[in-house]
């Protein structure tokens, strides 16, 4: 278990705890520079649009892993939080006439409160019922958003005016690319802090054996509800940004089980127990989706492909590609060293056998 060591790890001493190794710092810096430069590397409308979607998915899968990764509770219904955040923000702008920033904050708050309440019902039942509740949340909110036409615009959709008046479409994409990137960094930072905290250790204990954790004094219900609330708040924040960026909300598309399952797929594919795993997953799956859509978009192959990908990940690498690659690297890298050792050992043995 890769987390065994981190369970024991003490709380961080210095707060902005940058990794110490030089290649890692360079790597992180390079990554950030690359991310920030992306809208200028890719000035075209579509590339920027796809870039926003990819970073948005990275936020979503990272948020998902705050529950799925730490506690092991699989939620198929994070689209409920996404959609609720989007609608609350949109309604804040359209109906309440709030400034965009205030509406965004309102959206995040609404989602956090909803998640805390729904979470109480959801985590009362362990395992299977939790998944069912998350599925039910999506279908239920979809029905409600569809029905409450006076508030949500119903099936005609909710048109949310853009955050900056008169900005060009590609300029708007660049703006939201950065906003989503900031949100992603914030989500990663939160993940990092939880991972290194006592609280994070408690969540992981729940994942490994909930009964034992409880016996050892971990307040499991409170911990789980808190994890779900934080995770939902970030998901809702992504929804809020989405509402202002995309500008058009439709109940049956925003509250979608398929959206929820993509978050899971991305997080698992990258590795939901690793800081950058879900981001990595999003950076693989979302561009792949776009690629298949634009290149082979005339058939239903893309549904089959996403199903097949999930299938492979669940059966063959449930820990994600990070440990898989790591294992491969370990086998590859130390091998050059170990070959000699082994040869020496073999030599020794053969010598011993000879004598």
């Amino acid at each position, binding site marked *: 278990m890769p987390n065994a*060591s*981190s369970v024991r*790890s003490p709380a961080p001493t210095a707060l902005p705890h940058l*990794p110490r*190794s030089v290649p*890692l710092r360079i*790597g992180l810096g*390079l*990554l950030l520079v*690359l991310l920030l430069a*992306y809208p200028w*590397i*890719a000035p*075209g*409308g*579509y*590339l920027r*649009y796809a*870039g926003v979607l*990819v970073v948005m998915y990275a936020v979503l899968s990272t948020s998902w892993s705050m529950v799925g990764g730490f506690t092991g509770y699989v939620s198929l219904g994070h689209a409920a939080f996404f959609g609720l955040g989007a609608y609350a923000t949109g309604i804040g702008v359209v109906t309440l006439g709030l400034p965009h920033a205030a509406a965004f904050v309102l959206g995040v708050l609404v989602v956090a409160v909803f998640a805390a309440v729904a979470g109480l019902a959801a985590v009362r039942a362990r395992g299977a019922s939790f998944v069912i509740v998350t599925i039910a949340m999506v279908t239920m909110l979809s029905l409600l958003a*569809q*029905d409450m036409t006076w508030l949500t615009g119903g*099936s*005609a*959709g909710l*048109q949310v005016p853009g955050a900056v008046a008169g900005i060009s*479409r590609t300029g708007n994409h660049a703006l939201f690319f950065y906003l989503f990137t900031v949100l992603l960094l914030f989500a990663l930072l939160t993940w990092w802090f939880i991972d*290194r905290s006592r609280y994070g250790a408690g969540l992981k204990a729940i994942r490994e054996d909930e009964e034992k954790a409880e016996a050892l004094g971990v307040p499991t219900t409170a911990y789980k509800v808190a994890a779900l609330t934080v995770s939902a708040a970030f998901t809702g924040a992504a929804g809020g940004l989405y509402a202002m960026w*995309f*500008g*058009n909300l*439709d109940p*049956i*598309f925003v509250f979608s089980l398929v959206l929820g399952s993509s978050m899971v797929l991305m997080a698992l594919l*990258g*590795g939901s127990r*690793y*800081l*950058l*795993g879900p*981001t*990595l997953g999003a*950076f693989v799956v979302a*561009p*792949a989706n*776009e*690629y298949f*859509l*634009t*290149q082979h*978009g*005339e*058939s*239903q192959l*893309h*549904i089959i492909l996403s199903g097949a990908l999930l299938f492979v990940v669940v059966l063959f690498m449930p820990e994600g590609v*990070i*440990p898989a*690659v*790591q294992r491969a690297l370990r086998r590859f890298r130390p091998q050059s060293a170990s070959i000699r050792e082994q040869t020496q050992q073999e030599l020794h043995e053969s010598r011993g056998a000879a004598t």
Partner: protein
Amino acid sequence: MRDRGPLVTSLAAFTLLTTLSACSTPEDPTAGAEGGAAGTFDAGAAGLEGEPVRIGISMPLSGDFSEPGIGVRQGYETWAAMVNESGGLLDRPVELVFRDDASDPNKVVSDYESLITQAKVDLVFGPFSTRLVIPAAEVAESYDMLFVEPAGASDEVFEQGFEYLFYAAPAVASDHYDNLADYIEKLPADERPRTAAYASLDDPFAQDTAYGLKDRMEAAGVETVADEVYPPGTTGFTAIAARIADTDADLVVGGTQFEDSVGLVRGFQELGYQPRMAAFSTGPTIPEFEEAVGGATEGIISPVGWSPSADYGQNADFVARHTELHGAPPSEDAANGFTTGEVVAAAVEEVGCAEQGRKCQKALADHIRGAETETIVGPLRFDEQGRPQSAHLIQQWQADGPEIVLPDDDARTGDLVHPKAEW
């Protein structure tokens, strides 16, 4: 995380992938042309020289709207084939570039963003389903692309202030039943329905059709005795049918798509409810309808935007060529696709350009706004917001299949039977 191995690994992979995704994955400009080939319809443009006029279209080839989506696509293909056979557009061959949107608005926007900015198509046509038209039209609007579309007919579409959007059919959704309303208003008092029941899918298009008729009926003094709205994804319609049947209304109106129209008709049959007049949108015009309701079609009324037998423009050629190309006669959706092509083609030939840029595209839009175009659904004019100004025909299923019964002009093929036969 004490162990730094995973972090290094993920960083390495992450950097690699960011580079990859930035440079290659979401399609470089040339990939549009090549990759698009997978979804391109090469419409026998053998004899034509010169750069093709490339037209980008997003279509729901999978997902909830895929069924009518296929019809629209076939209509587009027939249009392209016929244009290429008769000398092309501005003497250039036409090439259609299709993308699947999986009935998902994020993908619709992806499609049009990539078609316009990556594949750099010269023109775009609209997608299918009202729910997808607004996000798609916003993309076209912000890149100054003419956006003639075959499906977005609900009121909201025309209230967004779009400059480039036109709906290529005779009338918007709320006017679909106008001819039927006129007919009912003229009926002698003892034949007129006294009560009406409405059941509609919660969908902007379906609801607008039913409520358009409801407004007219209420104004004419027909009492509304039931007004049911059910959400998408409803399974089982018998209980909803029971509620309608209980009112025993003279007129039943369904703001329906396909499975709900079938479910309601089957439900009415099972419950033994026999209204004097029954009207459903969309469902009864889809070829699978007759089999799905077990042949109990006689007397069912629907608004249609097009008739295979109408004597407008190239209609006869369209029906013949379409049947030849696709092995089946065209549906109304196919005709809508074809009409879209006709409206755009007329503007392109008149203005003399088909390329990106505000100058050409605005000229095309202005032309369409000012002109009357001859199409297979009759002459089309548009108002400032892109609403077509004609009226839908009224179709009624009769013993020998669907007949056009209203309005009382050349396109008519039969008389409206009222009250309808029992089902």
